[in-house]
Each structure stands twice: as C-alpha cells, then as structure tokens.
C-alpha cells in the first residue's frame, strides 16, 4: 500500500508545466505561463513570477473579492465593532460566521461585547439601487446604534454601492457626529476593485489606521509591549500564541485582528515593536505605524515549533534585555520536549511524504515549516492572492510595476505624528541588531527561497491546474480552501483546508504544532483512501465454483 502511494510520477518540472498549459487557448497559456515558475536559486534571489494580476474570465479561480479580504479577513475577527454591510443581502450572509475566527468576549457585562455572531445588512432593494441607498444606510446605522450602543460601527460597501455612487464616507462621518459616542467609518471595498482579496486587505489597513489606531492614549501597562499583526485566530491560533507570550512576559497590546477589540487597535500605537505574521494582509499598517509613531516591524512566524522558537528569540533580541532573553529560552526549553516527542511519534509515518499548498498570501509559506518538521516535502506551492514580494521577497518591491488595478487602491500619505512620533531605537542601534544577525527590520524574504530547486511555484492556481497537478505528481496531501476540497478528495488524495482548517486547530505555536502533526498523520495515513474499490472491482474474475444451484 505505502509502496503504491510513494510511487511518484517521474515527470520533470518543465514537463509538468507544459501539461498544465496544454489545454489553454494561446492567450491564456501565455498569461498563465508567467504565473507558473520553476524554482531555482539564482545568484541574486529566485526567478521572477507574475502575481497580483487579473484572473482570466471563465477560468475557475480560487480567488474571492476585495470585500472578502476587507470585511471577511481583516475586520471580521474584531468582536466589539458592529460590521454593517451596505448592499444587497448576499455579501453579508456569506461572511456571517463562516471563517472560524474564535473570540473570547469573557463573561457577560459591559466588557463582554461580541457582535461576531450577528450579520448586519442594509439589504438594499431595487428602489435603493435606483434612487440611492444613503438614507437607508443612515437609518440602519441609527437603528444599530439604538439597539446596541456599540463603541464603533464599520460600514462596508459591496459591488453595487460604488456604481450607484452612494457616499458612504460622508454618511458615516455625519452619523459619527450625530451619535457622539460611536466611531463610525466606512470601507470602499467593492468586490470589483483590485484583482483579489488582497486589495481588500489594503483598504482595511488604510481605514483601521486612519480611524482607529492611535485613538486612545490611555497608557497600556507592560514591560515588553508588542502588537501581533496578521494573525486571525482561526481555530484558536491566536489563543496559543498569546499563551506563549504571556509565559514569556511579553505584552501583546493588539492582535490585528484575531480575538481583538476596538480598544486594542486604538492603543496599538503604544507598542514598541510590531511583529508581522501574515505579510500580505497587514504589511501596510506596519509600515504606516512605523512612519507615524516610530514603531519598527519585524517578520515573525508562529507556524511551526522551530519557527515559533525563532520568532520568540527575534522579539527577545529586539528588546536587548537579558531577563527577557533568558525567559524566552526557558519557555522554549520547557515547551520543546513535548513537541519533540510528538514529532518522534509521527515521523516514521510522515517522513518522505509530499505536500502541495495553494493558499492565501502567507500560509503557503508558513506551513512549509510544519511539513519540514514532519519530514515532508512541499513539491508545489503558491498563493491565491500574493504579490511578487510574497514570493521573491521585499527586495523586489521597487521593481514591481504598478498596474491599473493596483493604482486604484488608495495609498495613504503618512507623516510622523507631531506629538507621538517616538523612534523606539536609534538608527545605529537598529543597524547593530541587524549586523548581529538575529533581527532584520522591515524584511521578508518570501516563499521562493524556502522552496527546493525544481519545485513549481504557481500563482492563482485554478481548478484545472490543481486537478492536473494532483494527477501528475500525486502528492500525499493537498492544501487549499473549501472550494477545492472535495474535487481533490474525489481523486483519493486527502485535502486539508488551510484557510479555515476544516475543523481543527490551533496549529500555531508549540501546542498547535503538535495538533498539526497529528492531523496530517491522520489524513495521510487514513484507511479511508483504501476503501474506494470494492472487492469485486479489485478482483473481477467470476468463478463458477461459487455458484450454487
């Protein structure tokens, strides 16, 4: 059985790439060809890949839209903001509780606000489309306020809103003034903007930065104050990371945006370091906070036990404080034995197995770590909505062409805050830290350098390519999202969702790593894949000996 499973097709990457493109009309093939890169280590990085470009009409894509990136991903996990979707009902309905973001509102009471279980919509009707929906929006904000008295209401535009020209920003500003004690602001995140969810991340970053970050100067206590950016508490990942931070004595002021509150965002400017998990979805806020408040950012990754240890060490090194450095080492030493025991247990069953990952804008990279720890190899990977820098590293940013779709997404001009800008470290101190090798500021090397030579890196993988890849390379596990799950599994290959994790989690941190090892072991070694043929199919000869009169 294992022998059969491990028998890999002997096709080279160039042949596989040719197969992926074979069926396409010439124009499509030309375009897709640039988004399929055969990885190799070049003197100066990795080969160039085309990314963050339009999806081809008719080609069944994994991507979603700007609204999904804005309302669903970034703003969805904050529990005490009323997220009001301005548009026809569907967009609001589909983003209602479908992302598995966990939150901890604590006990009942004034601090126990949680609106994440609610879906709020203006449910626009035909007359709103014809005559405009601004009045209805204002009325809906008022009704939400009267019912719930939230500290904040966020308004999200869906496709038709931009077209009919509703000015959601003015309505929000007017309602904010009228209500007095409720911060109301809006997101122009119509689904047609940009080319994927990524544009929505950017729009969300802009407005969170503009309307919330820095709104609350009441001091937050803590010795080593950081914020964690780009962590969404899917399946409780954020809970596990917070557990570790707490153990280390690190104060996480705000997570953007898993298990978060309005106040966390509002006080996030008081952090002394921003630790960025998902580079794609949140690097804008990190950059803007640096410019405005002087908070440096570093890339971290809490997916994978070793990556977690490494990230903790980076944070400790940044603070240059012996007490913290020792504490972090002690925590790692305390946590690792359990992880190592778990690896030892599963390794004989997972070593040498192969994985493919096509997900998000960071996870296809982050989860590489976990698979490596299990002795598994990622033979092909890519992002659904990454940019070139997520593949090739931030060094390529100056060379990325800004096309019409990206130009439409606002870039906020940020200046240093007149009173609150405070460099956390001198330029010399930062240079010295970088020279020492542990900490690199504002840096992300991307997915490609961590992938083996000869692996295929594919941007915006689609249904046809996924099926072809799986058939040709027969991975032991395929990771993507819900839309891809069952077509892959029909082929007899286990599929793990890495957006929402299907049902498990957490997979971050030390405990999460153990969960993941066990989950992948369960999937790649499941008996179910051997049940697909009935006995009479495996052995179809009929024998007269068994025919009874």
């Amino acid at each position: 059985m294992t022998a059969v499973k491990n028998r890999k097709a002997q096709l080279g990457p160039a042949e596989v790439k040719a197969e992926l493109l074979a069926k396409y009309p010439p124009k499509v093939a030309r375009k897709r060809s640039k988004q399929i890169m055969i990885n190799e280590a070049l003197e100066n990085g990795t080969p160039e890949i085309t990314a963050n470009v339009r999806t081809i009409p008719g080609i069944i894509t994994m991507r979603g839209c700007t609204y999904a990136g804005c309302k669903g991903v970034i703003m969805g996990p904050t529990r005490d903001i009323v997220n009001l979707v301005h548009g026809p009902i569907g967009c609001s309905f589909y983003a209602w509780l479908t992302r598995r973001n966990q939150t901890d509102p604590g006990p009942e009471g004034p601090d126990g606000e949680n609106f994440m279980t609610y879906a709020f919509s203006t449910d626009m009707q035909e007359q709103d489309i014809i005559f405009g929906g601004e009045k209805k929006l204002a009325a809906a904000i008022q009704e939400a306020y009267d019912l719930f008295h939230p500290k904040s209401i966020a308004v999200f535009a869906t496709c038709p809103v931009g077209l009919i020209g509703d000015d959601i920003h003015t309505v929000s500003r007017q309602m904010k003034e009228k209500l007095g004690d409720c911060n109301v602001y809006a997101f122009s995140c119509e689904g047609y903007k940009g080319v994927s969810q990524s544009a929505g991340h950017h729009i969300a970053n802009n407005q969170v930065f503009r309307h919330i970050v820095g709104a609350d100067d009441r001091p937050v206590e803590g010795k080593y104050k950081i914020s964690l950016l780009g962590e969404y508490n899917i399946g409780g990942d954020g809970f596990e990371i917070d557990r570790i931070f707490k153990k280390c004595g690190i104060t996480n002021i705000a997570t953007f945006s898993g298990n978060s509150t309005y106040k966390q965002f509002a006080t996030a400017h008081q952090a002394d370091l921003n630790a960025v998990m998902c580079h794609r979805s949140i690097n804008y806020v990190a950059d803007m906070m640096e410019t405005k408040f002087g908070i440096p950012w570093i890339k971290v990754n809490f997916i994978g036990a070793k990556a977690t240890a490494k990230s903790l060490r980076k944070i400790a090194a940044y603070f240059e404080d012996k007490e913290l450095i020792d504490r972090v080492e002690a925590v790692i030493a305390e946590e690792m034995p359990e992880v190592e025991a778990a690896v030892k247990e599963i390794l004989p069953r997972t070593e040498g197995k192969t994985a493919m990952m096509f997900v998000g804008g960071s996870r296809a990279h982050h989860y590489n770590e976990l698979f490596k720890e299990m002795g598994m190899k990622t033979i092909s990977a890519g992002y659904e909505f990454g940019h070139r820098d997520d593949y090739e590293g931030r060094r390529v940013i100056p060379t990325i062409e800004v096309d019409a779709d990206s130009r439409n997404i606002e870039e906020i001009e940020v200046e240093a805050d007149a009173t609150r800008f405070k460099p956390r470290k001198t330029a010399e101190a930062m240079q010295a830290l970088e020279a020492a090798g542990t900490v690199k500021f504002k840096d992300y090397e991307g997915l490609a350098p961590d992938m083996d030579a000869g692996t295929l890196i594919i941007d915006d993988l689609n249904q046809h390519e996924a099926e072809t890849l799986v058939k040709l390379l027969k991975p032991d596990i395929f990771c993507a999202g819900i839309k891809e799950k069952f077509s892959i599994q029909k082929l007899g290959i286990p599929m793990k969702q890495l957006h929402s994790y299907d049902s498990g989690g957490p997979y971050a941190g030390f405990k999460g790593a153990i969960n993941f090892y066990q989950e992948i072991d369960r999937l790649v070694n499941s008996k179910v894949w051997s049940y697909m043929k009935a006995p009479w199919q495996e052995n179809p000869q009929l024998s007269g000996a068994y025919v009874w009169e």
Partner: protein
Amino acid sequence: MLLRHTPKEITERSALTINPAKTCQPIGAMYAALGIHGCLPHSHGSQGCCAYHRSALTRHYKEPVSAATSSFTEGSSVFGGQANLMQAFSNIFAVYNPEIIAVHTTCLSETIGDDLPQIRKKAIAEGKIPEGKYVISASTPSYAGSHVTGFSNMVKAMTELAEPTGKKNGKVNLIPGWVEPADMEELKRLSKLMGVGTIMFPDTSGVLNTPLTGEYKMFPDGGTTIAELKSTADSIGTIALGEWSSADAARELDSKHKVPCKILDMPFGLKATDRFIDALHKMAGVNVPEEIMVERGQLVDLISDMHQYFYHKKVALAGDPDQLIAMTEFLVSIDMCPVHIVTGTPGKKFEKRIKELTAGMPCQVNVRAKGDFFLLHQWMKNEPVDLLISNTYGKYIARDEDVPFLRWGFPILDRQGHQYFPTVGYKGGLRLLEKILTLLLDRKDRDDTEMKFELVL
C-alpha cells in the same frame, strides 16, 4: 450567551436587517444549474460572488461545486462586462468543455445593465459557442427577491430549451423546487412506483451526492439532460412543486408550449404528499399502487402512535416560503402549534397562506415575510417554544434559549444526512417525525425528574 445583545423588547426596524433568513439570487441560480447534466454555471459579475456561492454550496453538500465567473474588474464595471463574458465563453469551452453554460447575473452586472440575451446572440454570431453546445441565461439581481427567486429564475430559463416535436412523449414534467438531491431522488422513486414517466428538472441527485471512487468528474453522471429539457415541450403536463421556486417555469411551459400545469405545495408531510400523489394519479391517469398506500399508512400510524408528544407543542420556524408552508401544514395536521414563522423571502401571499393554515389553532401566530432571525429570536424570548426548525444558523438561538433544534432547510453546515435522506413524501414524513420526536423525547428524558423518568415512552 452567543447572541447576548438581542433584546426581548421588539422595536420595528425599517433599514437594518440582522441575521438574515435569506440570501441572494445567484446562489439559487447556481444550485438549479447544477441540476442540468453537463452544465457549468457561470456567474456574470466580479469573482467574489461566485467564490461565496460555491463555498456556501460546498459547505452544505460537502461536494465539489464547479462554477466559473466573468471576474469583473473596475474597468468592466464601468464599461460593461460583455468582453469578459465573451472571453469566458471561449475559455470555458476550451478548457472544461461543458455541454451547456448557464449564466446568471449578479448585483454588479445588473446594476450596470448588461444584457445577457444580447451578449449571447453576439457570442453565437462570432462563433464563440461551438456547434451542439448551449448557453442559457437568467437575470438574478439580488436586490429583489431572494435565493429562492434566483432558483426560480434559472429553472424558468431552462424552459428556453424546450422544443416541441409535435408528438407527445407521454411524460409528466416534474419541477421539484429547491429541495435536496435526496428529495429529488425520492420524488423520482414515487413517480416510478406510480408507473409515471417523468422529466424532472432540475435534478441534482447524482450531482451533489456522488460517491468517492478515486475519480473526479467535473460533470457528474446525474442531472437533467438537454434532450430531456427539449422534450419538456412534449409532455402531457407539468407538476410544479412550490409556488415560489417552481411555478414560473411551469407557467412558461404552459403559455409557450401549451403544456398544462398544476402548481402544488412541496410534498412535505401527509396532506401535501397526498395532493402530489393525487395529482400524478390524475394527470398521468394511473392508479396508486399498494406500496404507496402502505407508506402512507405507516405515516398515519406513527402520527397516531405518538400524537401525545406532538400535541400542542409550540414550534418556531425560519426558512423558505415553499418549505415553510408545507411544514406549517404538516405541524398543524399533527396538532403541533407553529407560533413564530419567518422567511426572508418577500411576498405578501406567504403571510396569508400561513394565516389560513394556522387559523383555528389554539395559539396566536406570528408570521413575517421579509423577517430575519433576529426578529424570530425576539419573538421566542417573548413566547418560548418547544422546538426550533431552521437552517444551521438557528443553532445560536437554540443554544442561548436552550430549545431543541431541528436543522432543516438551507444551508445546513454542521450536520450530515440531508443529501442522502429525503424529507419529502410519506417516507420523508416519517423521517421528519422521527427527528422531531427524538428531539422532544431526548429533552423530556433530560429534564424529567428522577421520579418521573420512564423507561417506556
């Protein structure tokens, strides 16, 4: 409490929908289109809608759901999506090669005003649609109606393919409405038992409940074939189940091709199933076989055996109009009291039908078309119930209010079985009663004091 901010006191809302009991038209159109054999549904708009609809259907059916999109960008939103759709046609036929593409619009393309029939004409003229392949289209703006309307619009669009040959085919068209693949299978089984040849459209059985075999078929074996859809013009009549989801298509076949139609409630429960069987019997001129009589008798038997547990139990319901009407009638017929009923789908007729069905019940009935789960929950806080019936979203209310909860409707995201076990027909009625009884009796067993706890129920 998960819905801790929902107040008991009810204030009227004019602009704000909270926790909707409906979703948008295109997902219904997509579901319907999947019920045509060899069909790729296509969402004409920006790709987010398509991604959401595919995800929602996938979460409900736990099956692959393929559909393409025109992937509008800001440019297409300004200049119209014709170029995108033309390009999509070429790519779809080259890469996926379906028999037919069923296009539906979205809010975006509707607001822009894209004219699908005209774009199709142009595509045909330019040779973008290969010989022997088909494209049908439905207009499905989400700022009107609901997912049910979208379903109905796509089913109506299927009648475009009807092509009379001048010779009757002796069959009955059966439009099942938005029910589960298992329900469609059951309707076919019942028709077969009756000896009635049917053309069911759409038919998602064999499409959204396929086996795991190691082979992936983008176009599974099930679904109504194009030949069958053509032949609907030659049928002796049409039985349409559900005014909201099926009537338009039936009327279209009637007015265009003189295929007479009978519009019935969906056959959930005893009486609606009786009317369905009776209609088949009359329209096809066949007798009702003994097997079906036995199934009916079994359902009546269970009702009589367990009547004491149903009697005057209060029920809250959220769902789609056709389902709710049939379910309300069923509950009333076994002396349960449906007291709070909301659907998100607009339509004055709904409230009227529910009021007629519940007239004479010993309880006051709250009913609202264009209602939402928030209102339903508030009603339940004011007048508690013994059972909640709704799609999965009801579980938050059920947990907060500690009410037994029957998942029934769309979407069901957290339990299995709906795609395999029907709730239509007499056997489906048995299943519904079994589920309701189990919920009520499990609750009784949980809540009874030790003194009152009993072995035999």
